Every structure is written in C-alpha cells, then in structure tokens.
C-alpha cells in the first residue's frame, strides 16, 4: 500500500513558503523534506504536516550517516508520489531512492534529471519574463492532482495593528533599496498605515545596515523603531511579523511569511526581482515594481545602468503614492496590487504605465486555457510552440 505524498523542497526560506499551494493541495498527510536548518520554519508554516530535515546546506562534518538514515526513513514511508521542486543535482540524487513512476515535478529518468512538460513550459516562459507572469506558488501548486483554489491558500491580508515591519534587504543587495531610500519609504509607509512605530527585521550579518538605517531616520522615528535584525529565532520572527500591520520588504522570505500569516506587504521590487513571478501570494498586497527597459535584469550579469532602477523608486511622487495612493507615478515604476483569478495570484497595475500589462493578460489567458479554466485571448497562442500540441503531456486535456 502506498504512503503519503513526499515534497522535497531543498531550497531556501522563501521557497519553503512559496510551496504553500502545493502543500495545501496535498493535505495534512503529506510529508515535507527541507534543509535541516529550516525545519522550525517549515513546521510553523505547515503545522498539520510532517516535516523532516536533511542537512543540506552548510559544511557540517559527518553528515553522510544522517543522510543515509533520513533516506532510509523516507523510503519506509513508501510515498505514493515524490514532488521534486528543485532543479538540482542534490534533488536528483534523492529522487533515485524512489521509483521513477512516482516522481512529480522534476524527475529522474535513466539516471538523468528530466524536466516534465509543465515545468518545461514555465521555464521557457521565464525566458520572456518581462511579458509573462505566473507566480511561483502557482507553478508548484499546479503540480498537485487537485490544486486548492487560490483563495484558500492564504488568509486575506489585513492589517493586524499599526506596527510597520521593515525588512532591510534581500540576499542580493542589488534587489534592495539603498538606506536613504528605505528611510524615506519607511516614513511614507507609516503614513499609509497610520502608525508611528516600526520594527527592523533582517538576518545576522545585516546589523551594520540596521545601524545605518537608524542613523538615517528622523530622530523621533529612530526612537520608535525596534531593531531586531539578527536577533530573532524563527518563532520570534514569525510572531513579530504576524503582529505587524504592514511589512515593507524587497523580494524576501519575510515578505512571503507576511503573506502567509495574512499581513499586507508593501513590496519594493527592482533589478532582477519581478513581482509577476515571486510577488507575495494572495489578495491585499501592493508592490512598486520598476519597469525600465532593462527590467527584470539577470542577477548574474553586471548592471549597465547602475542606480537607474532606484531613481524612480526614490522619486517624491512615488513616496506620495506610497503614503496616500494619490497622484501619478514617475516613468519607470508601476504600482500593482495583488488579485486572484482562476490560475492563482497576479498583480494588476493601479498606477503608473505598465508597458507589458496587456501582453501579460494575454499570456495568463493562454495558461488558463491550458488548464481548462478559460478561453485564450486572441493571439495568446503565440506563447505556445508547435511541439506543445504534438507531444504527450502538453495538451489541455492532460493538464486538468
């Protein structure tokens, strides 16, 4: 007799939270495997499911015996399906412990990692990411045999209080607001929230950045700002975020955490961050996204226009919009709010000029058509290739 579904999510903080729709769809019997350092977080996010840890990231000695024990334990579960969410050699190695016909998501056939049709489409569309728009939560969630409806994934975002949570930076500094701009955004965001106090959130190693920010704030705001950077456990971070009325963040795991607990996010998406892929999931979030011709850029490529995508975000008109949602936005930035459709969460422009909004709507209509959820708009078929209609696993009846 087959056991539960096993979800292998060996990536980072934000990825674990973005697995939410898949986990919700698979139900409480599913087992989630994550990096050992993230098991507490995963248990907070998915208290109903069994979470197992594997020491994956970090150089700790003697791990191989733990790996062997964990793999043996997972085999004992005899999972009916093994969801492989990461295109990585580590993921492929683990997959080899399970029969090929049970692999979902990525798969290992004939000893090599294979990309199944749905993920192959998602990867191909990501090559035109400026025009496309499919939230990663939905990409993974739609792997489930019966995906949960988008509205049931997260609670609707509502301010729980008047504290502003401020996430200093993401992993890549390029995707984060410089300190003076972040200080200005804090003021505007507090005005929007109707609050006066803030809490700084960040990982160990960002303490200096926190000090710089505190120094850049008006003295009264600095005094009413609590600095928790590098000082919170997962549990403390979870509770702190849950107590906020609004979380100001670049594209980070904390932003996904806020969405998970129903706290509205005010996102600053710039450089390589693209709200249409990794925006906070569910209704009630607002994001300012830079849309310069070079956006979204590749993190691995050097920036040819340094500072260009920060300028519109630092513009007084942008700060005014953040504070009161009034007036025009400068060129190069768009304000968007999250909405739900049949496919999942998407972001709709509410201010500023979004040069790709029309194409994105067309794109989503084609994806929805693939899943049998709607009819495609005229011209949307250009997102598909000839082979998509010719080969198994790519036609609409095979997605439903």
């Amino acid at each position: 007799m087959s056991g539960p579904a096993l979800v292998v999510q060996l990536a980072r903080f934000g990825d674990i939270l973005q697995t939410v729709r898949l986990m919700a769809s698979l139900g409480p019997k599913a087992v989630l495997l994550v990096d050992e350092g993230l098991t507490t977080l995963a248990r907070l996010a998915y208290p109903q499911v069994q979470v197992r840890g594997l020491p994956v990231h970090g150089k700790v000695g003697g791990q191989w015996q733990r790996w062997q024990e964990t793999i043996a334990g997972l085999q004992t579960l005899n999972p009916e399906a093994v969801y492989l969410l990461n295109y990585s050699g580590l993921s492929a190695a683990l997959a080899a412990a399970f029969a090929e016909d049970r692999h979902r998501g990525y798969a290992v056939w004939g000893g090599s990692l294979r990309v199944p049709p749905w993920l192959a489409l998602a990867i191909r569309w990501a090559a035109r990411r400026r025009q496309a728009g499919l939230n990663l939560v939905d990409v993974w969630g739609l792997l489930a045999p019966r995906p949960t409806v988008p509205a049931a994934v997260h609670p609707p975002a509502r301010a729980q209080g008047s504290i502003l949570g401020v996430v200093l930076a993401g992993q890549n500094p390029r995707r984060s607001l410089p300190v003076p701009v972040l200080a200005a955004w804090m003021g505007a965001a507090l005005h929007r929230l109707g609050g006066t106090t803030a809490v700084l959130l960040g990982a160990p190693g960002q303490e200096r950045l926190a000090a710089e920010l505190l120094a850049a704030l008006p003295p009264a705001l600095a005094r009413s700002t609590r600095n928790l950077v590098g000082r919170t456990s997962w549990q403390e971070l979870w509770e702190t975020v849950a107590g906020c009325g609004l979380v100001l963040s670049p594209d980070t795991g904390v932003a996904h955490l806020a969405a998970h607990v129903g706290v509205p996010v005010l996102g600053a998406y710039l450089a390589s961050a693209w709200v249409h892929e990794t925006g906070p999931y569910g209704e009630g979030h607002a994001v300012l996204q830079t849309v310069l011709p070079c956006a979204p850029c590749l993190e691995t490529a050097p920036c040819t226009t340094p500072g260009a995508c920060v300028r519109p975000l630092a513009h007084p008109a942008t700060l005014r919009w953040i504070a009161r949602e009034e007036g025009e936005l400068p060129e190069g930035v768009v304000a968007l709010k999250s909405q739900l459709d049949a496919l999942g969460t998407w972001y709709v422009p509410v201010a500023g000029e979004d040069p790709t909004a029309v194409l994105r709507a067309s794109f989503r209509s084609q994806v929805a058509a693939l899943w049998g959820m709607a009819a495609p708009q005229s011209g949307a078929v250009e997102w598909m290739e000839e082979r998509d209609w010719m080969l198994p696993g790519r036609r609409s009846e095979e997605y439903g």
Partner: protein
Amino acid sequence: MVEVGVRRILVVLPLYGGSLPVGRSCARALAALGHVVETFDAPLLYPAFQNLRHLRISQAALDALENGYLQLVSQAILAQVERFAPHLVLAVAQAPLSRQALRELSRQGIPTAMWFVEDYAVFTYWQAFAPAYDFFFTIQREPFLSRLAAIGQQQAWYLPLAADPAVHRPLELTPAERRIYGSDVAFVGAGYPNRRLAFRAFAGMDLRIWGNDWDGEEILAPYLQRGGARIDTEEIVKIFCATRVNLNLHSSVRPDVTVAGGDFVNPRTFEIAACGAFQVVDQRALLPELFAEEELAVVDSLEAMVAATHYFLRHEDERQAMAKRARQRVLAEHTYTRRMETLLHLVGKRLGWRAETPAMGHLDPELAAAVSDLARRLGLRQDASFDDVVAAVRARQGTLDPMETTVLFLDEWRRQYGRGAPAAA
C-alpha cells in the same frame, strides 16, 4: 596481464541482429571484471527506425529519413558519452556509430574499439569503418589483419568469440521440456544454402530444425519446428541441453559446398559447449587452437558428420564425457570475461592504463569503509575510487538503496560545496 585499474566503459550495442547478444555479453563481462559499464541501448530506437518503411513515401525519401535517423542515433551516443565520460567506447559489429561520430570521439580524445564479430569476406563494411577506430578486434586472423594494416588500422588483433556461462549453462529439464525441446539430432540457426543441402542427409532420423530463414525447403519442412519462427536465447539453451547430438555446421552462402572449411569459429560452438551439451561441428582453420580433439567431435565432410552423429548416438558415455571436457575448456578459456580481459589488456597497454591506489583516502574512515563495502556489493574491483563507485551507482537501473543514494547525494554535495568539504573529509 597489465593491471588496467577500474575503467568506465561504454558498450555500444547494435540496433538489432546477431552481434546484439555479443554486445550484451561484453557489457556483463566487463562489469563482472569490476569495471563501471554502461550500454548504449540502440535496440530501444530500432522500432521507430523500422516503422519508417511503413510510411507511404518514396524510396528516396525513405533513404533520406533513414540516414537522418542514423545520424540522430550517433548524436545520442555522443550525448551519452558526454554524460558518462568513458575511458573507452567499445562497439560491436553493426554498432550505429557513424564515421563522423567516431571522428568527434577522436577529437575529444576518447579511445574507441570495435569487436568485428563478422566474416570479413562477406561483410566488407570494415573497409570504411576500421581506420576510424583506435583499436580493432577480429574473429579471423590472416589475411584479414594484414588487410586492416594496409588500410591504416595497425592496432588490430584476433579475438575469437566466446560464451557467457551465465546464459549458456547446463539446465535440468523437466520431462515435459524434454518432450518439447528434445530429439536425437537438432540444429538451431538460420537456413543458409549449405545447411539446407547438408541436413537432408539426416532426413529420416529423429531430427528437429529450429530457427528462421528455412522458407521453401521442402525436404526438411517436416522437421522444421514452429514454422521457422525465431527462437529466443533461453529456449535455445533448453534445445541444446535436450538434444543428444547438436549439429553445428558453419554457414556458407555457397550451396555447392556443404562443409565450407572456413577460418573463424562461430558463437554456437562455444555456446553448445558451455551448456555441457554435445555437438558435431565442422572443421575450421582456427578451431584446433581453441578446442582439443577430445573436446569436440570435429568433422571435415558431410559424410563424416553423418557418421559421427550415428556413432555418438550409440555411445552416450563418450558423448557425455566429451561434452563435459568442452564445457570445462570454455569455462577456463573461452568466456566473454576472458575475452574482455584480453581486450582491455591490449588497449590498456597502449593507452598506458594502470591500476591506481584506491582514492578513498580523502574520506573519513567510516565513510571510506561504507563506500568500499558498497563497491564490493556493486561488483567493482578493490581499487575502485569514490568516483568509480559514484559512476557505478549512476549506471544502476531502478530504485537505489539508502547507501547508494547517499553516495550520489554526497557526490552532488561535494560539487556544490567543494571536494574538501567536511562531510567527505
């Protein structure tokens, strides 16, 4: 023998045909020798190729499509080479490896060898392919070896066929199986012209003929089993074991010469012997160096074949003693394992292969012991390195056990975090 160390070897199987089981036997033998072996499974691609001819298209279009398909197969071989990074690509006759692909392998510095298990006088395509391989092995000696040298293939050696004792072995048959497969005299194989003529001399005996290509043979038709259907290997073994006298007449396309007296020794000779079964075989120039007189009943004419058959049907003890000796000779000298040892010795000597100290020293002692234990379970040589074990695990089919998975995981982990990382140190 040169100690060649543990080698990664890709065996390229043909799309179909008689050399296919030879290729599979080579792969098993190389694995049994403790090497890391993958096969390029060309037969997987054969059905689509065959079905091209069922399309309603012109012959010219079919030719173009077939050529294109064969190029695709070669590309697939190159892709497997890229992933497996073999020390040697070993092809058996008819392997779908184009000369262009061979040139590419040469450019990449990957040695190639061909075991040409065909009659060079009949299948002359060696003239086009032999110079493209680094090493060439034949089942015939002179003048073939000189002809190879003349066209630029200097690294060519005689390597006779063999048997795989895991496949061709004595079987205890049930009475029912003896009824189905047994007879006084039998032949298994294709109906070449010389066999059609020769076996008429056995008409009237308790004779059974198994195999295909016997269409239109009226005199022998009553003896043909299953309407000339192809017989699979497992059933062939049962037939060999159930038959009192197995006829083994080497093929010839000349109908006027029943006993052709050629040079190479066919696989059936080794296979019947490996089964511990008895055979009467026609004389071949290269047979005396492979088997002694008391091991096989060797005849040089059709009349002698008939006489020997009658004689040995009457002398069961002699028959059994001779069959036993033949089997012992095969097990000692004529297995695919021995052939592959010889092949690797010759190739390894020229490529400077050596056994290396097991490269487990960088692992912690407990891990090194666990990996060595896994290497033994996988049948690898004692000097297998961690990377050899990883390659052998990757080549495994099916679901892996926790230790095998752990080794793969560790290998990937080392790629991500560096080879000196503590989990491996």
